């Protein structure tokens, strides 16, 4: 997945900039944050539910 690649890039850049331990720590932190956000979205987003709540969204031609 694209997002994992981006996290890896962030971790590599952080390693180059701050050293191995700090880099690994930043990588893990970003990874955990992204995963937590994804989990939250998975739990809360239900597209069908959202669509059904928007009035006048579906149009019919009779």
């Amino acid at each position: 997945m694209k997002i994992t690649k981006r996290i890896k890039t962030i971790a590599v850049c952080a390693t180059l900039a701050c050293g191995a331990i700090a880099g690994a720590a930043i990588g893990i932190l970003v990874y955990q944050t992204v995963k937590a956000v994804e989990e939250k979205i998975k739990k809360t987003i239900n597209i069908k539910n959202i669509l059904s709540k928007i009035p006048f969204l579906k149009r019919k031609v009779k």
Partner: protein
Amino acid sequence: MNIGLVLSGGMSKGAYQLGALRAIREYIDPKDVRFISAASIGALNAYAYSSDNLDVGSFMWHSINLTHSRVLVTTILRSEFLTEVIRRLSKKEVQCEKMYVPYINLKTRSIFYTDIAEKEEEELKEHLAAAVAMPGINHPVLINELNLYDGATVDNIPVYPLMQYNLDYIICIHFDDYNYTFESRYFDNKIVKINFTGDSKHSIWFNRSDVKDMEIQGYKKAKAIMDFVFADGPENTEAIYSKIEALNAMNSHKVRRTTADIINDNYDKLKKRLAKRQIVE
């Protein structure tokens, strides 16, 4: 020829449309306008145009007792003159094949477009009355056990029903100060847009001289655009498309019109992105 006509709602600004339709009639025979979609006051004007009775459309504006002081449009919406216009129009037959009018049902929160071209007199009367039934001002009109209101409150420029037809071009008259891109670029490139911004207060607050001015301005502006677009005749579609392109380029303030379909499309795109990341199924 397959020509479409779209008229938006705009309350008393409908007087602009009457002037514009007179100008259009000089270039295009109403018989050639086979598909129409119109909302609110535009629906009455469209019916008057297609049945070749623009004078009936004007009757309402010129009959009401408009003195020097201005009146609110609610006076018209609740007046006997509106009922009389609907009664007179419903006795006429339109020359178009389809005439779509949007309606909303507040209970189900849905919008739909009904073809009123072949309705019988009584049914037509109800449909025209529902087309101008403003929520909060008028009562809904009961049709087929549904309480219906004016659909212009949701879709004021109803180009959507005409997308299903392969039309040579569409003439669209609306009152927003935007150079809209309608629905899709391919579809949009076939639309001759005539918009009247004017003074927004004239939508709801006007007197007889305002109405006269709007009719005259409507005629003049539409005639100028028709002169430009139909310089090579109303049947030379290639020339018309290039003129539409030139008109769109002249007005660079382009805005994609947000309608329910566009929201739906964007939701689909969002859904695909989220599904790609396995966030939703």
